[in-house]
């Protein structure tokens, strides 16, 4: 068996099992691309001390000292193959050759074959697509040039992931290997050492490696790691997380960043190094500012909420806005300007801002209030500000807020990405909603992430979060701004990812829920929806059109609420509410 020939070269001993099936190879054109062995890699990620690690991840076993030699031989091979093709040699024999994962051995054998002969060597070893078994069985293999086994537009298309993760931890290694082999043989031949003869021409599979495949493998490995964590198989999870790190290095752009952040979050969960809860709110404010500048999500949130508030304030002469998360107060200048230019003149504007306690006891809220007051004076709006420091919104009572119904004040409550934090403590969100009702607001505007990151099962949360943040990072990639802004925005999102994945209990505050879930909650709490109207939609669309690289952003209307998404995936949702059966 030719396998012996290979054995003499390969130093990887871990998996010299002879039960590997052998398949005839694809014709020459496939050899122009890199061939990939799926199985070999799986055992190999921990094997081979002197194997080049990065190539190992891609499925090649090359000794580090052999690298230069292999490179040279590959060049020779390419030249020879090129000339061989021109000669019109397209026929391939069915003979078995070598395991291409042992790159140096394979190249050597190829060279010797080509140099001697007429026949093009064929590669028999398992050159199959990675274990997207579902896609293999439905794929029609052809002998055409460069057919991609896995043709898929989106690296984040999680439909590609089979039902069972690629590294099913429950099985023993030999079983899992045979399972994988079985999955891979589209031709249905047995996994135990069937000879090459069983595989014939028409179903000759072919594989081309491109970075999308490593991207898919990356996703697979992440999913497998999450499943391992879910099943408390921390040793396996540990190994997989390291593997993810290596795979991520072979990617570029958004995929790489997402994978890195998720790997870090998983690692934290595995090693139980939980991140400190919100070290410094001024630091997170800075990060959020960069996020505000880089991409339209926060601007969209502010503009749409402001439009709803503006319409609710249409005829009022005294207005009071209660902002559940004041931060830098970036939402309010635009509202104040719109109020200043209101036909009939501006109302008296009162703002109550709520914020978390500062570690150094500086009164950040007052500073923001002062800045807003300056702006108000500049544009001629009567302004009053009050700040409340609260570590949780549930600590507030309506009486603290000094609502003044006697003055005919119209109240609006605004919450941008604040309500989901309350879900970490049982009962908190109900308490807050009833407090809101007691404030008797004319309108309540809520902006939340459109994703369910609060499910009870870790793996589901993981899948959902991976999809969500992949889209989010993807949208950031197109943004053309100073790169520092981009990096800070990514750090901002990375902290969210860490919180969703690595924290539990009261620490996990990023408990995002979808619009339909919030709708249900608001409904049962006694609120009726308010439709956001076409003005808000127009403003939002115009705003998005201004963003460079913003072709992918989409504004959608959803039963009166507005959603901003990237391509087909909605990412944040703005909704407006009023008290049920409000008589006015």
């Amino acid at each position, binding site marked *: 068996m030719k396998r012996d020939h290979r054995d003499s070269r390969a130093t990887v001993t871990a998996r010299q099992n002879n039960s590997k099936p052998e398949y005839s190879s694809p014709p020459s054109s496939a050899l122009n691309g890199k061939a990939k062995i799926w199985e070999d890699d799986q055992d190999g990620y921990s094997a081979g001390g002197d194997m080049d690690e990065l190539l190992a991840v891609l499925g090649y076993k090359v000794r580090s000292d052999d690298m230069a030699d292999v490179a040279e031989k590959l060049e020779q091979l390419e030249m020879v193959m090129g000339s061989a093709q021109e000669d019109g040699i397209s026929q391939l024999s069915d003979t078995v050759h070598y395991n291409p994962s042992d790159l140096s051995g394979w190249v050597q054998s190829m060279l010797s074959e080509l140099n001697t002969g007429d026949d093009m060597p064929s590669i028999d070893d398992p050159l199959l697509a990675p274990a997207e078994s579902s896609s293999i069985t439905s794929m029609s293999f052809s002998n055409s040039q460069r057919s991609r086994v896995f043709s898929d537009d989106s690296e984040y298309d999680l439909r590609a992931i089979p039902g069972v993760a690629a590294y099913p931890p429950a099985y023993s290694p030999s079983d899992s290997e045979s399972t994988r082999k079985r999955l891979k043989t589209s031709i249905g031949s047995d996994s135990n050492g069937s000879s090459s003869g069983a595989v014939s021409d028409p179903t000759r599979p072919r594989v081309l490696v491109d970075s999308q495949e490593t991207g898919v493998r990356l996703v697979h490995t992440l999913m497998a790691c999450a499943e391992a964590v879910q099943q408390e198989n921390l040793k396996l999870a540990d190994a997989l997380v390291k593997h993810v790190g290596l795979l991520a290095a072979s990617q570029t752009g958004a995929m790489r960043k997402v994978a890195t952040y998720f790997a870090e979050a998983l690692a934290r969960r595995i090693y139980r190094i939980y991140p400190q809860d919100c070290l410094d709110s001024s630091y997170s404010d800075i990060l959020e500012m960069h996020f505000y500048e880089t991409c339209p999500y926060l601007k969209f949130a502010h*503009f749409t909420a402001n439009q709803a508030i503006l319409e609710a304030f249409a005829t009022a002469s005294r207005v009071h806005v209660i902002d559940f998360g004041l931060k830098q107060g*970036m939402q309010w200048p635009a509202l104040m*300007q719109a109020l200043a*230019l209101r036909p009939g003149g501006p109302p008296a504007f009162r703002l109550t801002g709520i914020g978390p306690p500062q570690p150094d006891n500086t009164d950040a809220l007052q500073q923001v209030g002062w800045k807003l007051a*300056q702006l108000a004076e500049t*544009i001629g709006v009567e302004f009053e500000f009050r700040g409340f420091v609260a570590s949780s919104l549930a600590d507030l009572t309506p009486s603290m807020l000094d609502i003044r119904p006697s003055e005919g004040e119209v109240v609006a409550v605004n919450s941008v990405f604040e309500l989901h934090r309350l879900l970490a403590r049982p009962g908190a969100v109900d308490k807050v909603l009833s407090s809101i009702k007691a404030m008797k607001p004319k309108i309540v505007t809520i902006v939340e992430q459109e994703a369910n990151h609060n499910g009870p099962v870790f793996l589901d949360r993981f899948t959902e979060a991976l999809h969500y943040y992949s889209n989010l990072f993807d949208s950031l990639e197109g943004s053309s701004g*100073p790169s520092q*802004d981009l990096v800070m925005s990514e750090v901002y999102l990375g902290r969210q990812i860490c919180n969703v994945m690595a924290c539990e209990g009261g620490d996990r505050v990023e408990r995002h829920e979808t619009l339909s879930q919030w709708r249900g909650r608001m409904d049962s709490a006694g609120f009726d929806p308010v439709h956001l109207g076409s003005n808000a939609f127009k403003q939002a669309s*115009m705003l998005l059109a201004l963003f*460079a690289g913003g072709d992918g952003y989409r504004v959608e209307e959803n039963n009166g609420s507005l959603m901003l998404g990237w391509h087909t995936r909605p990412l944040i949702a703005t909704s407006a509410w009023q008290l049920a059966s409000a008589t006015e």
Partner: protein
Amino acid sequence: MHQNQNTSSQDSKEKRPKFFINDHIDILVEILKRLDGPSLGVAACVCHLWSTVARNDTIWEHLCFRHVSSPPPCSVRPVVVALGGYKRLYRVCMRPVLSRLSDSEMVKRVWTRDEVQLSLSLFCVDYYERSGRLGAGGGGDASASSLMFLCNTVNV
């Protein structure tokens, strides 16, 4: 100004009054009011006088609202002036907004109220950010970063 009818003698030529536009600032202003943004910028480079005149905010106000279908309410002016003036409004907000939202900058089309409103809102945000920066002593950049997305070129 009447011209001397006797054109043959050199004396009459010397006595013929010449028309210098710089002597007539009001006419200059009227002319500049009708220019578009880039031309106004070019005009401001002609000489010191023109530069001073071109800085006149009413000229930029005309530019900003020239193509709006209905004239803006009178309450707009004090707000815009307080936030930095029409020249800044045009440069920082209106021109980028309009060039992004319309096919070609040269197309003189009616600016909708929504576009004006959006520009004004962004202008206000810009002012707020700048005031914050100066207050913190961070300073440096004249334009706030929240409007950086407007300054970046769009891949058409």
